[in-house]
């Protein structure tokens, strides 16, 4: 079942501390044809609360896709990734790492933690928008995902 084919909007969790980046992702997603709900977590702790529906996130929805930055306050992206991928309930959610880092050890480490893909944010705006759109359409329109 491809989520984008349904009338229900796609639920995306963006874990990103930089307001500028949040805005850029929003801009990019707005250009796409998919109906989406973008949920925000500004650090790793918030992200885990959201995923576990804790506290103020008691009514949070289960995301179809997680866009995860690596360098985050409190709990960084690697820790979030590790926790998601060992959680029986959460581990099937695709996690796309979006980071500025091209460091080999970051790439290697996140794949070892079962990241679904690793993307370096392009510095050029048009490139960036293209990448975000591609990510969205690949994971939401091309890939067959497990049932929710």
């Amino acid at each position, binding site marked *: 079942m491809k989520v984008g084919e349904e009338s229900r909007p796609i639920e995306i969790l963006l874990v990103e501390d930089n307001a*500028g*980046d949040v805005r*850029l992702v929003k*801009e990019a997603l707005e250009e796409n044809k998919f109906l989406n709900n973008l949920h925000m977590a500004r650090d790793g702790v918030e992200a885990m609360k959201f995923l576990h529906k804790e506290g103020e996130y008691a009514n949070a929805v289960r995301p179809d896709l997680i866009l995860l930055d690596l360098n985050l306050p409190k709990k960084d992206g690697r820790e979030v990734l590790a926790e998601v991928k060992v959680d029986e309930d959460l581990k099937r959610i695709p996690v796309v790492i979006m980071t500025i880092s091209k460091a080999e050890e970051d790439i290697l480490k996140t794949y070892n933690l079962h990241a679904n893909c690793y993307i370096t*944010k392009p*510095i*050029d*705006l048009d490139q*960036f928008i293209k990448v975000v759109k591609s990510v969205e359409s690949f994971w939401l329109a091309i890939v067959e995902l497990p049932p929710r």
Partner: protein
Amino acid sequence: MKEKTPKELVHELRVHQIELQMQNEELKKAQLALEVSRNKYLDLYDFAPVGFFTFTRGGRIAEVNLTGAALLGAERQELLNRGFGHFVAPENLEQWERHLVSMYKSEEKQSCDLALKREDGATFHARLDSIRLALPTARLPDGQEQAGVSGGTPVVRTTVSDITDRKRMDENIRLLATVVRNSNDAVTVQDFEGRIISWNRGAELMYGYSEDEAFQMTIWRLMPASKRTEQEQLVRRLRAGETIHSFETQRLTREGRLLDVWLTVTKLVDDAGTPVGIASTDRDITERKRAEEVLRKTIADMDRSNKELEQFAYVASHDLQEPLRMVASFTQLLAKRYKDKLDADANEFIGYAVDGANRMQKMINDLLSYSRVETRGKPFEAVGCTAILNQALTNLRMVIEETGAMITQDPLPTVMGEESQLVQLFQNLIDNAIKFRREEPPRIHISAEDRGNDWFFSVKDNGIGIDPQYNERIFIIFQRLHRREEYPGTGIGLTICKKIVERHGGRVWVDSQPGNGSTFYFTIPKTGGLRL
């Protein structure tokens, strides 16, 4: 007196005859015994383990046993009546003559050592012991009078023994003693109670006790309290027959200074195999240990500084680029969103801002690559430069095809280095050679020469060349000789080449004239560069 009757006479004669016969028997027996004894003596004489000689006063050989003849490598018969001086090495002739004179003068045993020359020319060392016999005359066992010994002339017998082996051994012992005496290591011998039996100069210098002082003390005085148990165990184990070779420990000098020493110990046994003591060779390694410690610290410092550099590089790659991205992205977003509301100037400004951000990002990435030549360096291994060059050419395939570059190469050696870095080195140099080309298609030749300790590489092109005044400057980070519009790039390529060559222990330089092409040279030591 009454005449004896014939019968009586016959009887008497018979009795005499019998007596004579009996005497004759006795004589025969005695002669036989004498002969047996003479043979015994002759055997003893001939086969004695030393040479027996009798010399005339003039030094001729009057008599010699078989051993003596064998020593000189000649038949006995050939030796008789020959001058013994013939067999004495020229440098010892005078000594021999003196010995010859003195052997007749004194009743004391006379000795001298001579180098003797055998009949076949080989020399050996001999000890001569001569003694004048008390007998006024002498007869040889076969009854002849001894030649040259007549009347009241005294008889002198000389034994000659081959002492070559002993002399060699003595020489060896002397050499070894010299080595031990002058060794910088402390060489000592102690009994099992620790009393010092031998103490060389090295021990005097190392521990500060003179030989005399050492003989008055025990080895325990050198033992720091912390090493007493170790020493007790050592003595116990050695006495029990264990072999202990070398180990590191500590010793105290007379001034109370603590030395780190490397000890080699040997158990000494007497002829019967009973353990009698311990020989110990002690090397002062205090300085070496200190140097090792300094080296260890330096390496630790370097590791730490490398890690810090790595951390810095990571910060540069990640944290510095984040704000840069914001500048670039939002300037672009501004341009996109408000395109119609902005004038030409505004668009130009936005263009510069985006270009600046892009260039800065490139430079940050270049700096990162530069720092990683050291921090990400892998251990060296033997790598074939032909394969390396081919890899570099593969990476450059697009630009080679676009420009129609002709690249030729001589046979290239195998060097000690890091493959990926050497690929980058060749790639950067060839990329430059193509980039700074003239109108005509680039021609590039790569060669290598054996220069003894180094391999000497060259990359020669037919490009625009470089004014020699910039020969140094081109290797400095972010230094460029051309405007960006003419030739793109941040100016990192040659800087990274230099860093790679230097990491491999070599040198890189350029020889060029404007308009005449350039040749870049670099060396790579055959041993590989310094690696920590």
